């Protein structure tokens, strides 16, 4: 079990004036599965390569259990990186690919064969050792890449966009496989992705990087309930932002006053809430009931999106189609926003 600490890590490529990664700090507890989330080009892969020793940082430090590893060569660091496109060696069989790391450590052939077979069984590819990587499907290649990494029992596992090349139905299968193997072997794992869904589905903790800086490092649900700012809320699909003033457990908007949960900050700010937390009630008795006019209604099969006008503001809601079947465009309707789903951002 290894505690990974990244301290003020910065990388500026030669010939470039802007750093590709600026001052990133991150703590990953032993055995934790953490995600580095951010749009393409924000330095995620650069970060992984620096942890793996494949790239030298311009400044900053990487420590494992408090010891700096920057001077360790990549082959001695105990970090294995699995690339997004798997990079199985094309001229080697599946078994040779999986056994590669052991061969490099000069483990004897019989032991390599045994451990390769065990590993292939573990990733649910028993008996495919003789195949060439080109004969495997994308999902199978991914599992071979994972087996090739895990067989050397790394202290730290790095995964580059582990689910993004997979079809929707394979994603959950792979997610379960990665989670179960990672927990079983207790390997501290960091993966990077640009897809917030992938991060939420897989990670214990997510670090969000926007505009070259780390915005927030929390467990996935916090990003939905308690985002740090508007950009973070937007990245996670937030659409409702109302400006106003928070005082004494209440938020004053342009159209009225809403009750807030107790842990909200005070002062001028932006009120945010998830579209899926809005209820179309018809009643006026619930807390935070608002009378709004339906401007737009889009049926999406399993859900319906509503755009509602309240005074000069718009509110976006996502509801169960059955609840709004009879609602027509232009009609007025009562909606309620439960106080615990409200959150105030500094503007």
């Amino acid at each position, binding site marked *: 079990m290894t505690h990974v600490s990244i301290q003020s890590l910065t990388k500026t490529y030669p010939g470039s004036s802007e750093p590709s990664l600026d001052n990133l700090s991150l703590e990953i507890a032993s055995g934790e599965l953490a995600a580095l989330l951010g749009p393409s080009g924000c330095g995620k892969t650069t970060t992984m390569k620096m942890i793996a020793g494949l790239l030298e940082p311009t400044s900053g430090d990487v420590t494992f259990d408090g010891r700096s590893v920057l001077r360790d060569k990549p*082959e001695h660091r105990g970090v294995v990186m699995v690339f997004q496109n798997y990079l199985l060696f094309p001229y080697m069989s599946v078994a040779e690919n999986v056994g590669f*790391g052991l061969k*490099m450590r000069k483990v004897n052939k019989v032991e390599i064969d045994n451990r390769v077979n065990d590993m292939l069984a573990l990733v649910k590819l028993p008996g495919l050792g003789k195949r060439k990587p080109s004969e495997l499907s994308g999902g199978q290649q991914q599992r071979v890449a994972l087996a090739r990494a895990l067989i050397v029992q790394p202290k730290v596992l*790095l995964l580059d966009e582990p689910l993004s090349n997979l079809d929707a139905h394979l994603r959950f299968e792979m997610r379960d496989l990665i989670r179960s193997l990672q927990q079983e072997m207790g390997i501290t794992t960091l993966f990077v992705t640009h897809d917030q869904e992938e991060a939420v589905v897989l990670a214990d903790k997510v670090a969000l990087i926007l505009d070259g800086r780390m915005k927030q490092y929390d467990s996935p649900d916090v990003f939905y309930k308690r985002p740090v700012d508007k950009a973070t809320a937007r990245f996670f699909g937030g659409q409702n932002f109302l400006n106003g003033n928070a005082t004494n457990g209440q938020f004053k908007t342009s159209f009225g006053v809403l009750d807030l949960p107790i842990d909200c900050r005070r002062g001028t700010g932006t009120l945010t809430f998830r579209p899926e937390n809005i209820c179309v009630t018809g009643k006026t008795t619930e807390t935070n009931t608002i009378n709004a006019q339906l401007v737009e209604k889009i049926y999406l099969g399993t859900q319906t999106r509503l755009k509602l006008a309240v005074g000069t503001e718009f509110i976006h809601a996502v509801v169960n189609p059955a609840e709004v079947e009879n609602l027509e465009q232009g009609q007025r309707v009562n909606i309620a926003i439960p106080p615990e789903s409200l959150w105030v951002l500094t503007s």
Partner: protein
Amino acid sequence: MSDRIRIVVLLFPAMLIIVVLFFGGLVVGLMRSFNYMPVIGLTEPNLQAYWSVFTDQEFFLSFLLTFHIAFTSTVISSVLAIGAALLLRRRFVGRALVNFLFQLNLTVPHLVGAIGILYLFSQSGSFARLAAEWGMIAGPADFPELIFDPYAIGIIIQYVWKEIPFIGLIVLANMQSIGEDYESVARSLGATRWQAFRYVLLPLLLPGVLSASVMVFAFTFGAYEIPALLGANFPAALPVLAYRKYTDVDLAARPEAMAMAIVIALLSAVMIVIYLRYSRRRIRD
């Protein structure tokens, strides 16, 4: 116009030229090597020319020498070209200059390189003078024989000079399209720098290196002017011997020259087979 007719029309002139000139030359050479030439009244093919060529010790020595030249030059050039490509892949002071010289060297004809090697390595050449200056030799005869020598060292040096950039640029392009990620994977799985090269990069480069080497081998086996300028009189390289036989005052020697040309062609056919195997593999990967 249907596609079929269009293709025929597009290809016809080119195929006509290649078939008539290249394959015509090959077939006529083959016929003459069998002493078969109905136009001049030779209607009974025989193996006389091959018999006299294959029993001739000069041919035997010449074949061995030519094979040695081609094989040694190809192996040395390939190995050094891989090294040079590894060097050129990284940033270093002077990389742009080396790159430019590589390309410049490609455009310099072999003949010019051969003359340069002659002036550098002959017994009165620049290196001999340098050795004399430093008191290492007393006179030209003390300088090792590198030109007109039985081991064809001068010829090989010339080919190596000319072919390192040729193979090197092809290997470098291969390296750039392979990228460094495969080696990164290997390193992170515990391979040392050397192991990552030996077990990962080299096997990935091999098809490209082999298809380039095959072209070099065929060229060095069949080139005339370089051994004609830098080679010993006896045994001469096969193309030189074939040319001599062909231009001999005794016209009876011509079928023997043709037989030697056919030997060179057969060897190149083997090279084509190897080339196709590896260039296809390169495309597939």
